[in-house]
């Protein structure tokens, strides 16, 4: 049974709950979320963006740190905010970033 059907005791949950359930039960990527929920990639992407806006998901950058922890001028940071563990993808980075998504408890 897919995450979508099972997330509310067999009753079909909506895409947002299905995506959250997929994350909570160990999905590691959006592709895996699509496979578990049966949702289109477009819907999963929109759901993740919406959950981020709602504060139900948390997205942070993941980079290796600097040798002395002085991140104020780091290329992967934004303004005076550090690149390591900064919230969301930085606007300044041109390359891909690793975004970790963790489910926040309501």
């Amino acid at each position: 049974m897919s995450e979508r059907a099972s997330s509310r005791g067999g009753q079909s949950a909506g895409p947002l709950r299905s995506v959250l359930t997929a994350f909570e039960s160990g999905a590691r990527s959006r592709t895996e979320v699509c496979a578990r929920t049966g949702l289109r990639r477009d819907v999963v992407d929109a759901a993740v963006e919406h959950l981020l806006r709602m504060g139900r998901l948390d997205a942070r950058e993941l980079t290796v740190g600097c040798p002395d922890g002085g991140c104020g001028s780091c290329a992967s940071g934004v303004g005076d905010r550090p690149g390591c563990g900064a919230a969301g993808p930085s606007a300044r980075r041109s390359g891909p970033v690793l975004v970790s998504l963790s489910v926040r408890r309501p």
Partner: protein
Amino acid sequence: MTLARPSTAAPRRGAPSCHGDAPAGGARPGVPVVALVGAPNAGKSTLFNSLTGGSRTVGNWPGTTVEVGRGSWVGTDRCGHPAEVDLLDLPGAYSLDPASPDEQFTADLFTGSGPAGAPDLAVVVADAAHLARSLYLVAQLRERSRRLVVALTMSDVAERRGITVDADALAAALGVPVVELDPRRRSGRERLAAVVADALRAPAPPARARQRDGADDDALAVADERFDWVDGVLMTALAERPARPTVTDRVDRWVTAPVLGPLLFLLVMWGVFEATTTVAAPLQDALGTLVSGPVTAAGRGLFDLLGLSGSWAEGLVLDGLVAGVGMLLTFVPLMAIMFALLALLEDSGYLARAALVTDRAMRAVGLPGNAFLPLVVGFGCNVPAISATRILPDARHRIMTALLVPFTSCSARLTVYVLVAATFFPSAAGTVVFGMYLTSILFVVGVGLALRRTLWRTVGQEPLVLDLPAYQRPTLRLTASLTWVRVRAFLRTAGGIIVATVSLVWLLQAVPVHGGSFGAVPPEDSLFAAASRVVAHLFVPAGFGDWHTVGALVVGFVAKEAVLTSWAQTYAAADPTAGLAPDQLQAHVHAAFAASSGGAVTAAVLAFLVFLLAYTPCVATVAAQRREIGVRWAAFGVGLQLTVAWTVAVAVFQVGRLLT
């Protein structure tokens, strides 16, 4: 004919005059007000410009900082009559849930709670290539009886991606008219004008019925119902060609595979360290020779010239700063190469995959998933990694992760690994360094498990997903920029705290304990040596109870780079007549281990490396721990690191001695 306000429609909630103090340039008073809304980048402003031509103004909406475009749009209805509307270009909004001033403005406008009334009709500009993202707003707007038209843009982009949208089916599912158009090519404008004219004449469609009950105060349930409706709409109106696996998909099948993925990661990291040590070795030798040769000779000549030859000042500058800091600077090429290779891996997208396979291993042994981010940061520097534990919502996770971070091998420790590996294992230096990083992961896992089974038996798992970006060709700009930032930070450390540490060590080495004068004492008779000898007894069971070695480790509490500088200045001071070339330093270190290990040199060196890896990284890390988890836990952390480091080092030496 001017578009008349329909007489059959429900009373207008917002007269055009309500918008009269909005940016000038709109249509004549009395004409219907139509608002363009939609998610950012859906083509809304392009459509607005295309419809209004030169007849538009852009300015802040009165009383707000929200920028709104306004213009007169004169189209034709189905009978060919002119149809004028007052067109508003509202700021981009994904939804009516106010997450920004722009979205608040749009929400207020459509709920009628703002100073201006709601427009007569909304044209929702929807990107056909990202329809799910665009239709959430439609779902919200359809919850009230309101005139809506959906303008479908980017159909060509969607087509290229194998997405076909059936506009008629979409209109039927949404319950509002849908017009496919391309504002860049100015196609579809006439149809849109006709459909808008029709919609303005017709009564507003009834609000859509909610599919599922959800209390209004349960924001997730309400939003979920909307997404469910959007999903249902897409199921009936959108056809998608099965996506062909991309290059990223094909590569990821191998790179993130449960068994092959970790093996490949190990191979890649081994390659990084092997390349780093191999390529950097000749550069490092050349720099070392430069520092110990011409630079030291020039300095000695200068002191001769000043008549300060043999003075304490010469000792501080040449045996302290030049030998110590100079030795550290010979590692700049090595650090630059490693940082550049890591930046390449990061920028290409591979680091994300490496994170995925490592995370999987950590979860397998029960470590909290979201502790992974600070731990990865820790491989660069432990200080920001400790700060990064703030992202963990659970206090126990925060403390546990902050206690584990010091076991991640930061780049400062790399310099010592390289020197020791090049001294004792010259043909396998890269492999030894790689082994230290593996050992670091084992420490994190082992200590993490031990903490979970003793202090935090009930720590739960936090879900976490790693969002994998597509692979891309690394950019020179970003790679160079990241490399420079990290090298600069290394240089800053060398120029700041290391200079201070070197000066302090020189001072301690200048103080005699068995007679003699300040600054003219052999290192072995100095206060530094005497204090180091006391501590060195503790390390006899680990095979490296030599005062030079232990003194360097004690100095390493300040910063790990100081282990190197301490060695360099101690051995340089022992023979102040000449500079200390890199091979001479290695010979001194080798002799010290040979003497202290009783012949089991390899076991002693491995024990030393393990101790170096596991004991307290630096004072800055302890300060960061104190700040983040309090003084008691920080003290516990230091005790934990020293206990683990000493115990494992002794075990490595004793077992190694039996085997050799």
